[in-house]
């Protein structure tokens, strides 16, 4: 019995459950094709402009960039945690621990640099600052 057969089976069931709910709902729900209610919800106001053109804070980009770095790093940490105890017994504490300290240390220095540059801090846009002065 392969473990992945069971996981695949649950994946199939996990998709079938929402699909069957959608089907059940499609059977019993009413359809009133009136167009007024289809307007985008903007707290009762008439919607203005397009959502896909609104400008948002570049902050989110910096955080995503940092995330990629640390997420890749986590992938390297996972196998290290698995073999760590055995590695200490075979090659000793220093040889098992020191390379990871150097590797993570490099990235922690990078985090400190990003921290100093204000990448992990919420910055206000110059325009918002100006508007506050006025």
């Amino acid at each position, binding site marked *: 019995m392969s*473990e992945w057969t069971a996981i695949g089976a649950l994946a199939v069931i996990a998709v079938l459950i929402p699909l069957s709910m959608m089907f059940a*709902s499609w059977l019993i729900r009413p359809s009133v094709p009136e167009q007024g209610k289809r307007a985008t*919800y903007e707290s009762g106001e008439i919607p203005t402009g397009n959502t896909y053109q609104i400008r948002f804070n570049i902050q989110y980009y910096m955080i995503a960039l940092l995330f990629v770095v640390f997420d890749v790093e986590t992938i390297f940490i996972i196998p290290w945690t698995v073999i760590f105890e055995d590695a200490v017994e075979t090659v000793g504490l220093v040889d098992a621990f020191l390379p990871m300290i150097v590797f993570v240390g490099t990235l922690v220095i990078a985090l400190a640099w990003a921290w100093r540059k204000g990448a992990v801090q919420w910055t206000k846009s110059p325009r918002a600052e100006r508007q506050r002065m006025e």
Partner: protein
Amino acid sequence: MTLPVTVEGYLPFDGAAGEVVAALIAATLVSVIIMANAAVAGPWAKRKITAAFTDRIAVSKIGPMGLGYIIVDSVRLLSKELIVPEGVDRPAWDLAPLVLASSAILGFAVIPMGNGIHLADPEVGLALVFATASIASLGLVMAGYASNNKYSFLGGLRAVAQNLAYEIPLLLVGFSVVLFSGSLQMSEIVAVQSQTLVSLGPVSIPAWFAFLNPFAFLLFMIANLAEVGRNPFDLPEAGQEIVAGFQTEYSSVYFVLLYLGEFIHIFLGGAIIATIFLGGPAGPVLPGFIWFLIKIWALFLFTQWCRSIVPRVRIDQLIQIGWKGLLVLAFANLFVTAGIVGVLAA
């Protein structure tokens, strides 16, 4: 022995067909358990808990203690009209609820629930459960982007920022327990925790990782609250600020699926905590499955408790807590744990 193997023993035929049928039957059983928990939690337990915190009675008219609302509300929500707002990005808008609900159910594939209810036990179990749990972020982004609604868009962006900030501490703390167990296999992690930590006369305290490393347990609980998006980290929804965030434009069955996904996600978070910190289904006197239910419901109660009593953090505070606080503490936890384990092993 995992559940499909047990089921296969009862089947009149074996071979490849028997394997697939057994796997499907076992997967259905596990899904039924998950769906039953979510059904009790969503329309009933959540309301009752919130009502108890705010000194109200809440659902009480239909059935004993209002339990009939589970059926009544399911029918009510499913029979509502599905309103498709103008300008939605159609395939993505329809897929988002599906992605959220499906990924949350899939996470339970490797969770040991006691009494042999354990669907699969691959060697990469812990990595798999974190991987499937984080697919939900994708669903949130799809829902936020495809709705063509400014509140949804902001909610989707917040969801990304939040999940990115708390995913790394969650993983680092989660994998710090692997230093003790030396394996990603769920059954192995649970087995290591069943050893005795200290004996106090007749009572022996098991070596649950929450007792071995309470600091990691605390960090994981905080990061998990952010991961499931409950107070103080419920910014993606934030009722008072952005209406309902990414789910503003969803109605009818899609609304049900979004909420179903969220509730199963809370239970999945609870199940991960129960497995890697609270000894999985282990416990005295009662059968393992009952203990598993007690643990995930206790952790569900904890999220609802936080939801009722803790104020929401601001988005700038969220980023600072995540990147400056939790991430640094998670690294410290990983290295201090590794140091202790290494010195003990050397």
